[in-house]
């Protein structure tokens, strides 16, 4: 059964230096608060996994928490680059970052294999690309029935999977809806899991595309309102698009970045204090 804990305690207990950690959220329900708590607790040498590393991964990389990144698309959608990620890859700032890159279909297949308890997954992809040359975790298998040559990718089995969901019930079952990405697979593929929720309710209501993870596949449930800020949590909050566009100049300048992280993350004790530290204009009009 999942236990209810504070985000501080969940990160302290489950995420250790050197772990492989997947904070998933495919453009919606992104666990920003968990990433910032990892930074507060000064974790290091992490192998970070994410299909779409965005601002929170830029922060983790820029603060030196990551040794390696496994990913398929790293950007600040619609707003610019991840300059801390780029600085790490282009100039080893703050230190060398090992990268292992796939396509989205390849990453999704790897999570599915992990969630299924299989050693690898397969897909029709990568043929003719340079990805197949530079990424050692892309190989080939021949279908024993048709002879078709298919790409093979090893299962992802992170030490810890971290996601956001909209709700938990009192028993620690969690429910998410809207765009649910690869979050279910990330939890089921991981050895341990932390789920941040917007709200704890007595009973779930039906939702279109509602996905429920039973309490017994989740380790810790943390009540963190707006835990996915500045990303979306459908029916709770809209994307704070101004935050995304304002990130570009902060990320671009290493000094400015470190000062921002000091003020808003290291000097705050939790996510509520982080939100309170922001310009109130960044929190306007985000109710969904």
């Amino acid at each position: 059964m999942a236990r209810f804990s504070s985000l501080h305690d969940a990160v302290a207990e489950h995420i250790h230096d050197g772990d492989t950690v997947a904070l998933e959220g495919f453009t919606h329900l992104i666990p920003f608060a968990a990433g910032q708590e990892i930074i507060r607790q000064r974790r290091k040498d992490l192998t970070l996994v994410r299909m779409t590393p965005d601002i929170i991964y830029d922060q983790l990389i820029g603060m030196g928490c990551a040794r390696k990144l496994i990913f398929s698309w790293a950007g600040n959608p619609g707003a610019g680059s991840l300059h801390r990620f780029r600085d790490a890859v282009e100039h080893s700032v703050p230190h060398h970052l090992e990268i292992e890159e796939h396509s989205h279909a390849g990453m999704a297949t790897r999570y599915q294999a992990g969630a299924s308890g299989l050693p690898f997954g397969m897909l029709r992809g990568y043929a003719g690309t340079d990805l197949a040359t530079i990424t050692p975790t892309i190989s080939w298998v021949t279908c024993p029935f048709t002879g078709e040559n298919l790409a093979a990718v090893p299962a992802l089995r992170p030490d810890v999977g971290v996601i956001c969901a909209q709700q938990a019930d009192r028993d620690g079952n969690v429910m998410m809806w809207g765009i649910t990405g690869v979050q279910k697979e990330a939890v089921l593929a991981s050895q341990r899991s932390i789920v941040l929720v917007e709200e704890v309710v007595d009973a779930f209501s039906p939702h279109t595309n509602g996905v429920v993870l039973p309490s017994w596949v989740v380790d810790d449930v943390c009540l963190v309102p707006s835990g996915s800020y500045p990303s979306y949590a459908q029916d709770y909050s809209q994307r704070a698009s101004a935050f995304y566009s304002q990130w570009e100049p902060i990320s671009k300048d290493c000094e400015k970045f470190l000062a921002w992280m000091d003020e808003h993350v290291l000097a705050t004790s939790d996510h509520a204090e982080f939100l309170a530290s922001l310009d109130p204009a960044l929190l306007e009009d985000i109710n969904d």
Partner: protein
Amino acid sequence: MTESPTREALKWTNDEMMTVAAARELTSGTVCFVGIGLPSTAANLARASHAPDVVLIYESGCIGAKPDRLPPSIGDGILSRTADAVVSVPEIFAYWLQAGRVDVGFLGAAQVDRFGNINTTVVGEYGSPQVRLPGAGGAPEIATSCSRVIITLRHSPRAMVEKLDFVTSVGHGDGGDFRARLGLPGRGPQAMITDLGVLRCEPESREFVLSSVHPGVEIPDVIEATGWALRVADDVSVTAPPTDGELHALRSFVGA
């Protein structure tokens, strides 16, 4: 070739012409895999103008999305709330894209070559890049499995190159029957829509050649803005200018 109007006389920008030309590649009922940015604008313009029944699929799992404004991200609630179905990311790539249910894939590119191969990974050496780009995303399998691919990008010698620094997504490889030899199911890139004109894939060689120039653009301008020795089709034409209806629909979308 018909007479081109001068730039000064035009009532639209090159980018608007590019978006309109890209939208015209879609017909009603086409199932289209859409990325954010120009592809999303073009696909939504098609839906708002000549192709109301175009089916838009976003890789976030939204199938049949009908947004009434341009979403800032593929995670936007306007996509999930207006979609016919919302599915997981493993499902969108496996059951829908890989299984061959998508007619058209719209792809952007940092670099493209004469055979429609795409680089969105690095500029320079992979191990020590001058510019690290976002990477593959959904593009490699979109390029593999969609029936056809349309590439949209702004024309420049730095983008339209003789040789890619990295092949992220495969077009026609080194040309000819490359795709058939690799067993790639889709027909690959068929059109390249830029802010200067439209390049189309030649049937045998699979090389992209200039098919039309946008109004106000001269053929030498396009050749100069292309990093490979661009060939010009014998029947090269001038792209039909945007109609008032297309411009109105586009501007009301972009402004929304």
